């Protein structure tokens, strides 16, 4: 009889440590490159966005992989986090000297705002299933984009001013615009740092692993596995779906803040359907429910377009071809089987080597 298959969520302690180790090794590798002056400017500019995309992928994996509900509007939550974080950073900048502390407060604010919106959207949306849910989340993502695209926010000595569609903020002399509709936010403090990004990735991993190890995580996994059975053992499906969805939006919001504050200007059009799909691609490519997979996929696919820059006009074509090739290879049963067999052979080889060594010594 078959023993339990290695759980693809990587719940064992060893699996978790490997994932955390992977992030730390990446961090160390980049730090060494930087110290020895081998880091290209192109890659340097990508470091924070890589971390942000990794966190976005992890957060969407909570909705799509772990909860099992398809969402196509994730960029909406990222965007809410981004612009809330921008407002917080701009307002508190004069008061707080430390960039790290400012980033931390902005991240918390961005996450909470996105979580709150996620909760409100989740109430009507999570009544739907499958394709319907996907379409409605897509619509909500677009609504959020349009709303922010028409939002004007200014700050002067009297406080914050808001206006919608038309720019009539009527700021005082000392005022400055934080957000000017379709032109977006300019003159941003670039307070996101690579170390901040890595810490956010580690925090997200910690958060998700602890969630999965709790009764709440078990309930969410049980719901994905068999909703009717979960209900029959007393699990309130609506409540836990909403909880998971809100948590997913919360993390996406933090990723948005990190992302936005790594640029000097950002506008809402950046957070469109393309971005939602891109995040979904990371999750699907990395494997549904596979946190380590999400990290690797998000990291590689963010760097890939930069690596392909030398192909100029054919860049996105090559990107697409590589993407299709990866999908085909990783989903090919024959290749996957071949790979597991090779892994087994390798394992066997090691144990034989160890045994023969022990035998030689003894």
């Amino acid at each position: 009889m078959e023993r339990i298959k290695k759980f693809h969520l990587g719940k064992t302690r060893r699996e978790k440590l490997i994932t955390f180790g992977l992030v730390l090794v990446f961090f160390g590798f980049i730090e060494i490159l930087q110290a020895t002056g081998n880091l290209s400017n192109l890659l340097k500019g990508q470091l924070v966005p890589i971390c942000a995309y990794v966190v976005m992928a992890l957060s969407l994996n909570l909705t799509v992989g772990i909860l099992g509900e398809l969402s196509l509007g994730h960029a909406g939550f990222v965007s809410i986090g981004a612009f809330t974080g921008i407002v917080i950073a701009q307002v508190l900048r004069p008061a707080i000297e430390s960039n790290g502390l400012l980033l931390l407060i902005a991240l918390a604010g961005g996450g909470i705002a996105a979580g709150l919106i996620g909760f409100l959207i989740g109430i009507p949306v999570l009544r739907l299933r499958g394709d319907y849910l996907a379409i409605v989340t897509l619509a909500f993502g677009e609504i959020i984009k349009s709303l922010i695209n028409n939002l004007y926010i200014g700050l002067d000595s009297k406080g914050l001013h808001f206006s919608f569609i038309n720019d009539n903020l009527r700021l005082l002399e000392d005022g400055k615009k934080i957000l000017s509709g379709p032109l977006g936010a300019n003159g941003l403090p670039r307070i996101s740092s690579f170390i901040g990004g890595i810490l956010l990735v580690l925090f997200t991993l910690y958060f998700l692993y602890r969630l999965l190890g709790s009764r709440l995580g078990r309930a969410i996994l049980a719901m994905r596995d068999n909703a009717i059975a979960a209900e029959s053992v007393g699990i309130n499906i609506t409540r836990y779906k909403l909880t998971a969805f809100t948590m997913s939006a919360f993390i996406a919001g933090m990723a948005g803040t990190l992302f936005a504050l790594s640029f000097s200007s950002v506008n809402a059009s950046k957070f469109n359907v393309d971005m939602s799909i891109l995040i979904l691609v990371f999750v699907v490519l990395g494997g549904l429910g596979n946190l380590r997979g999400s990290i690797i996929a998000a990291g590689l696919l963010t760097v890939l377009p930069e690596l392909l820059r030398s192909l100029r006009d054919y860049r996105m074509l090559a990107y697409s071809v590589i993407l299709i090739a990866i999908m085909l290879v990783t989903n090919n049963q024959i290749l996957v089987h071949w790979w597991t067999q090779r892994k087994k052979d390798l394992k066997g080889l090691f144990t034989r080597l160890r045994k023969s060594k022990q035998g030689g010594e003894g």
Partner: protein
Amino acid sequence: MERLVPTPSLGVIPERDSDKPLILDIHGLGIDFGGLHAVEDFTLLIGRTEIAGLIGPNGAGKTTVFNLITSVYQPTRGVILFDGYDTRGKRPDEVCRMGIARTFQNIRLFKDMSVLDNVLVGMHNHIPYSMLSAFLHLPSYHRKEKEARDKAMDLLGIFDMQNMAKWQAGSLPYGAQRRLEIVRALATEPKLLLLDEPAAGMNPAETAELMENIRSIRDRFGIAILLIEHDMSLVMGICEGIAVLNYGKIIAKGSPEQIKNNPTVIEAYLGKQEA
């Protein structure tokens, strides 16, 4: 929630339960699907620690009755009083928390999860720790999780399944999957356990063993059990009261002896003898 007084006894309640309030009191229950009266004027009383059987030919509406009791369907007519409380308008998860647990005819396990996790999900509402202690792994988290695991292993012990705790639930043999569903249902700490064809697909030896298990579960937990079953040796062997359903209506009620010799029941199962 208002506790309602059960109606005077109409059915066959075991002697030992006769002076206690009923665990289940279903009165005039009916549900229509379109124009079809799937269940009609269904009345059933079950005592605190009774093992009762619900039998009938295929398509008689037995599983529909289970779905009505667990609020998967809302009744068109009639009242279900569980432990004196009306279950109408409640969600299935609320009914479970009131104390009704069930198994399914077509097994519904959490197939991708381990056997132990299946039981732990069943104990969900009885593992009290805050999410804060879960995220920070405070001592209360470790203590409560360990208690829960110990209890889950203890429950698995009913069917000697402790050695399978780490297996994937979907990879268990069929009979073990059925048994795991019972363990998972027991983990919710029910007062009434509904078993939908627990012996389906089991050989006579396994069925005999299951019979003993069901009886010992009743004795150990002091709960009532209502089961749907086609295996007559099991039904006649352990049920104290039996109700026979045909075309959505109860055609007979009584002790196993009474049911065995009831001409209406024989006719429903075997058809009418040509004159």
